């Protein structure tokens, strides 16, 4: 963790707090809403009219068989729709045909295909809308190129090659991605991150990366271009949110295979039904028509999940985008759900990044008020967060305020040599600093170290805190307890993660004693103290050897190898190019805490897929009870006993099943896009809950739905 991000996240910290506090079972959606409010970006409704209309046209465009074949289940429905349309045309001209029934079946089968296409189009539409906004940012800009001989020339952003050096002045747009090599500037990155507060970018260090399309607000910087034209971060971002390079993720692929297999089984079951029917006497005027067999086929094959599968995947990516996280592939989102170990940097992720004074402990015989006065005075000129926190503590908790620093006093700033800071008055001087330094200072003046100081210091260190000794003149007054403050709500979140079976490991540069104390307080499962990048890498490898998937965040160049090795590596947008290249996700808000949300979004996406698959398969039971009696009641009137729903007539039974089958897709689009409700619970409880809702619900729902449609159809007089 670098200073920069530490600073950043500290600023954001209190705001993340409410989102993280009192979160017992808070849904991701709500958290996203809080986030959207914060970033000031408009959160699109699940079904936004601006997206719906283009999606309607898109669903027709997606009828193209060559595109549709990627989705075997829906492709079969399209083929069947074509066949039933031909049968309809035949029946229109055929005496004794049943054009109304065949026509209606055909109509609804087409709708089944269109609804499935629509689901995908809506999911894509959300990304497309965002891509359009981004594209507006990408519009060609001019750039001032500095040639090796120092001369400047005007060129366009698209003409820039890797290694070119450009000068960007205040008010200008940075033409392409690169690293600042000279100067410092405040940059408005809202075009990419949605965050309106400007950020500082300067040469050298871990905040040198700038992104094309962002605007320099003050000063001027010299940037060395690091991206080829068309391959900038913005370009990749557009491609990602648009889903142009979307490939099936591993789980999606496996699910497609299963769905294709089920489709084959049902194809077989329906195809062989005709011989059995003929054997059973369904010949002549009782013959089972092709339309009915095809209707049965479409009702049985898993059209619901088949139609929604890709929408679920796109929506999962989109949910991340809404949270300002860019996943470089769907595979990464899926892997996020599988993560079993989270590596979290202590500073900025678990704690607020800076130590804060939490307690003043006076030495024997010293009043706490006096200690507070002196501690406050020693820090008045101290601009570090630690110093500010001492002043705040002394004033807020201990009521110190009275004394002003006398005129003519001299402030002694902190230096690496003395490891103390303080103030010199005429009469005496005040120092605060590390125990050893203060001890030496007291010794030099011939003072005495009070009994109990060492004990106090040791006990603070054991608690993971940092002791600062405060002395006035030759007298030690007491000790300030500085400690890392755990971000609000983190303890609960770690509890939730543990409930989900995810292990959290805190990474810190602190010594083991401090690390262990903070780890215990924060409630993480393990910690890696005095961590070097190599240690981090070793830890990741060890976890992976043990079959675990590891997620981590990072921003520095030295994080890059670990980010690449981790199964889910989230780079901070404020980080270096190297880190961003190595990671498979980039968090535009540079909020490392968001890693936890990423994991939850990944899980939610997988849950949605599983739940809708279960629902889809469970639906078939009712459809059999609708169609089988309807099919054979002519041959075997006794089979009407299986007509559990007491559907009005064979025609209405079959139509109802087909209509239900189509409508259920459209009704489930919001669920597919939003994701099933997510609660941080152990897998066993999640399973029981989802099995009940989507398994049992999947069996019961169509019985009710088909019956209702049957009532409507009967009322319309179609049967």
């Amino acid at each position, binding site marked *: 963790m670098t200073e920069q991000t530490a600073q950043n996240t500290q600023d954001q910290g209190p705001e993340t707090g409410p989102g993280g506090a009192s979160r017992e079972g808070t849904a991701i959606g709500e958290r996203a809403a809080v986030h959207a409010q914060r970033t000031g970006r408009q959160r699109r409704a699940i079904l936004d009219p601006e997206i719906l209309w283009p999606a309607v046209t898109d669903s027709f465009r997606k009828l193209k068989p060559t595109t549709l074949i990627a989705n075997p289940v829906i492709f079969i429905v399209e083929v069947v729709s074509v066949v039933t349309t031909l049968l309809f045309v035949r029946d229109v001209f055929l005496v004794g045909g049943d054009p109304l029934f065949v026509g209606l079946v055909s109509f609804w089968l087409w709708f089944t295909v269109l609804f499935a296409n629509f689901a995908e189009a809506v999911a894509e539409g959300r990304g497309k809308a965002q891509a359009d906004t981004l594209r507006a940012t990408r519009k060609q800009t001019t750039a001032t190129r500095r040639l090796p001989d120092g001369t400047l020339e005007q060129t366009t952003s698209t003409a820039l090659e890797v290694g070119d050096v450009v000068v960007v002045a205040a008010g200008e747009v940075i033409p392409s991605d690169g690293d600042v090599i000279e100067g410092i500037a405040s940059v408005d990155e809202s075009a990419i991150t949605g965050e309106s507060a400007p950020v500082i970018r300067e040469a050298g260090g871990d905040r040198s990366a700038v992104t094309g399309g962002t605007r320099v607000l003050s000063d001027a910087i010299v940037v060395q271009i690091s991206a080829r034209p068309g391959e900038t971060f913005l370009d990749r971002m557009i491609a990602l949110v648009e889903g142009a390079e979307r490939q099936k993720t591993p789980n999606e692929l496996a699910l497609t*295979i299963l769905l294709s297999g089920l489709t084959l089984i049902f194809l077989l079951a329906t195809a062989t039904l005709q011989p059995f029917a003929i054997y059973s006497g369904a010949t002549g005027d009782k013959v089972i028509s092709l339309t009915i067999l095809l209707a049965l086929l479409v009702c049985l094959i898993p059209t619901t999940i088949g139609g929604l599968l890709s929408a679920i995947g796109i929506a999962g990516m989109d949910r991340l985008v809404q949270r300002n996280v860019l996943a470089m592939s769907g595979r990464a989102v899926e892997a996020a759900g599988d993560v079993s170990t989270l590596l979290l940097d202590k500073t900025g992720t678990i704690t607020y990044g800076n130590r804060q004074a939490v307690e003043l402990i006076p030495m024997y015989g010293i009043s706490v008020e006096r200690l507070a006065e002196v501690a406050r005075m020693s820090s008045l000129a101290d601009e570090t967060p630690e110093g500010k926190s001492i002043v705040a503590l002394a004033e807020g908790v201990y009521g110190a305020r009275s004394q002003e620093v006398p005129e003519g006093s001299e402030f002694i700033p902190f230096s690496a040599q003395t490891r103390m800071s303080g103030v010199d008055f005429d009469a005496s001087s005040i120092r605060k600093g590390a125990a050893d330094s203060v001890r030496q200072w007291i010794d030099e003046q011939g003072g005495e170290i009070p009994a109990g100081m060492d004990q106090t210091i040791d006990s603070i260190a054991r608690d993971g805190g940092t002791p600062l000794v405060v002395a006035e003149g030759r007298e030690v007054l007491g000790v300030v307890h500085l400690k890392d403050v755990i971000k609000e709500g983190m303890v609960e979140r770690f509890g939730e993660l543990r409930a*989900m*079976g995810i292990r959290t490991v805190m990474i810190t540069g602190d010594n083991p004693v401090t690390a262990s104390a903070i780890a215990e307080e924060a409630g993480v499962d393990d910690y890696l103290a005095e961590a070097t990048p190599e240690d981090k890498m070793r830890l990741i490898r060890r976890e992976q050897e043990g079959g675990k*998937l590891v997620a981590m965040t990072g921003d520095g160049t030295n994080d890059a190898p670990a980010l690449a090795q981790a199964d889910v590596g989230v780079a901070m947008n404020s980080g270096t190019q190297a880190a961003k290249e190595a990671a498979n996700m980039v968090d535009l808000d540079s909020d490392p805490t968001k890693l936890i949300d990423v994991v939850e979004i990944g899980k939610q996406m997988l849950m949605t897929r599983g739940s809708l698959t279960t629902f889809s398969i469970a639906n078939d039971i009712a459809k059999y009870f609708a169609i089988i009696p309807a099919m054979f009641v002519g041959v075997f009137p006794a089979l009407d006993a299986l007509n559990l729903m007491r559907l009005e007539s064979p025609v209405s039974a079959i139509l109802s099943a087909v209509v239900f089958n189509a409508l259920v897709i459209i009704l489930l689009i919001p669920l597919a896009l939003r994701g099933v409700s997510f609660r941080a619970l152990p897998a066993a409880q999640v399973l029981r809950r989802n099995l009940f809702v989507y398994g049992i619900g999947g069996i019961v729902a169509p019985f009710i739905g088909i019956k209702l449609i049957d009532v409507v159809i009967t009322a319309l007089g179609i049967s």
Partner: protein
Amino acid sequence: MSLGSWVQLTVLVAMLAVSTPLLGTYMAKVFGGVKAPGDRVFAPIERGIYRLCGIDPEGEQRWRAYATSVVAFSAVCVLGLFLLQRVQAWLPLNPDDLPNVPSFLAFNTAVSFVTNTNWQNYSGESTMTHLTQMAGLAVQNFVSAAVGIAVAVALVRGLTRRRAGTIGNFWVDLTRATLRLLVPIALVGALTLVGLGLIQNFSGFTEVATVEGATQQIPGGPVASQEVIKLLGTNGGGFFNGNSSHPFENPNPTTNILEIWLMLCIPFALTWTYGRLAGDLRQGLAVLGAMVVLWVSAAGLTMWMEGRSNPRLEGTAVTQVRTDTATGGNMEGKESRFGPPGSGLFATTATGTSTGAVNAMHDSFTPLGGMVPLVNMMLGEVSPGGVGSGLYGMLVFAILAVFVAGLMVGRTPEYLGKKIEAGEVKLVVLYILIVPVVVLVFAGISVLLGTARASILNPGPHGLSEVVYAYTSAANNNGSAFAGLTGGTDWYNITLGLAMLFGRFLLIVPVLAIAGAVAQKNHTPMSLGTFPTGTPTFTGLLVAIVLIVVGLTYIPVLALGPIVESLVA
């Protein structure tokens, strides 16, 4: 269910409750690679066999080699058994001078016994010589069962090993399963059965004068030795045409219960073995639970339905209620010494275990009572299934269940810590697809084909049940015959033979491929986020998946067969 049903079921469950842990633990030791009880006796014999056959017992096989060994071994067995039947007339132990078996029938029978199906298109006592029965059929009863166990054990190894290339050695598994498991139990079992009244001799037909003065041909033969392995190995091929309804094969209710136990003991115990080898007994218990639920429900349903009276016979002189001299219920086609409880329990066990033995005429069961054995087979032999095949079949369903529902907990589905990905799903889909394809396509052709239709003895829905039953039985390697279908024609000899071959090897190969694929994978440690597979919830899910997948495949044809028949009646 009647009191008799409850008593029989309870006795059986008690016997299984004792045998499952004992036998399961023993098998875990036999196949776990560690020291096993009886090493002092068996180890030298095994070493002898390995040396004789040139087997390196330490040489582990990758899944392809394992599968090749299974298929090659079985192919040699089919060929050998075929030839034996074709020359039996000229060989010894042929007291009744039986002729050679016709070639199509010999093919069907060879395939039938090697695939552990034991579909019999012949009448045992009048077709097979004692030599063919003992050196051919009985040997296959042992080794075909051992093959099933070997494949199951290989799958369990694949699931439990980490980053391994191999899944064991087929020849070693085959030898150990036969020598350490089947032979000892068969030996004790056969002696027990002889003690309870089964015959064991080398006689041919004995002509006797009956009390009424007529003459009767009484068959003889080495029955007990064949009977025990027929059941223990879930083979089902009877020595006599009457199978276990014949008094020499199954003389009394005690032997009946013992025979039912013999069918169930290994399939149930293998789940215990699985739990032990997986290092988590609950994994085995969850699978066992699913098998028990399916088996008990099937048995209970049939016993109950057969115990009720036949509505068609009401108002006739037939007594269908229980009296001092009659058990009551639907007694048509049942032995009076077994009655509806003993017959229903036997029928559902024999169909649920892929044994296919019969002690009653399933054709004469009530429509729904007869549908249960049919559905039992359609389930793919997992209630509890054949020796080995039951476990691997159920594990494939478990993988499917994990995949369908596992995503619901928000992780890539895992079974025993092994990620279930596209490769495994493909193989699972192949596994569940093969049998329905074979059954529905062959049955579909048979009901339309004139020559095949001619074999159907009963018209209408019942005839459809007969045909579907035959192919279901063959493709699921059960061998149970519904009767009412003349199976001995060329069409049925060939197509049923093919159905048996496809149903055996086109399933074993994907199973071994799954074993090989998951063996290579790393193991994800269990955590609270892991989809739990050792719980009652999973048992329930597994049962639901089996019923739904099978139900959705076969409901249409069931509706036109037994269901409509029961509704019409």
